[in-house]
């Protein structure tokens, strides 16, 4: 922890970010992550939160891939009714 403090003190003037601010942002990010484990703890280390964030983003992007794949297969077999369905969804 002390090494982290000294790093932020050494960072150049214009973007001095306090540890408190970083912790606040990290914990806000933590709130967005799905609760995989039973942890309601706020004591997550910054490194862990960042790691879980990376994992979460990757899993969301994989989902987009999968959904795109399935939509693509669906559209491959589309017919007039389907196009009409899409248009009706657009009309709402």
């Amino acid at each position, binding site marked *: 922890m002390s090494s982290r403090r000294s790093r932020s003190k050494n960072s150049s003037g214009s973007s001095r970010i306090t540890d408190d601010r970083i912790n606040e942002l990290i914990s806000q990010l933590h709130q967005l992550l799905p609760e995989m484990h039973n942890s309601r703890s706020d004591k997550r280390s910054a490194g862990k939160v960042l790691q879980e964030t990376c994992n979460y983003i990757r899993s969301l992007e994989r*989902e987009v891939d999968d959904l795109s794949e399935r939509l693509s297969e669906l*559209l491959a077999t589309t017919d007039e009714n389907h196009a009409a369905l899409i248009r009706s969804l657009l009309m709402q």
Partner: protein
Amino acid sequence: MKIAKNSHTNPTSIKTRFALRFLRAIDNLNNNNNISPPLNSADRRKRFRAIRTAAYASMASAVGPNKAWSRAMLRKIRNRTKEMIKPRTRRGAVRGSTNPRNELGLGQEKELRELVPGGEAMDFRRLLNETGHYIQCLRAQVQVMRKILHYSST
């Protein structure tokens, strides 16, 4: 962190804007390709990519220019369609020159910068801010895509 509050009080807003754009994009794809369903795997792969790109482009466009990640995303997509010849290997990877600042001295920060569009050039506070927003939008995007898939397959 200025995560759009309205994504909580008005959860349909970004989803609606995304859905409209995405559906229009799919409709366009359909109209251009409705002659023959893609039979070979190359066509299928092309169609899959087109839909995936349309999804990301629709979300970035729905978000608008006020977020660095959405601007970076749209820029990347536009550049990609220009250079169809040279495929990019890793999305968001920065070759060489720019050295991402390593605020906490953690490897995860660098990893995050590569995952979030435009992440390489932000200071750490903005990176965290943009990441939060990006995650919320990705989630919304997934939810809407699931709904569309659901309604389309019944």
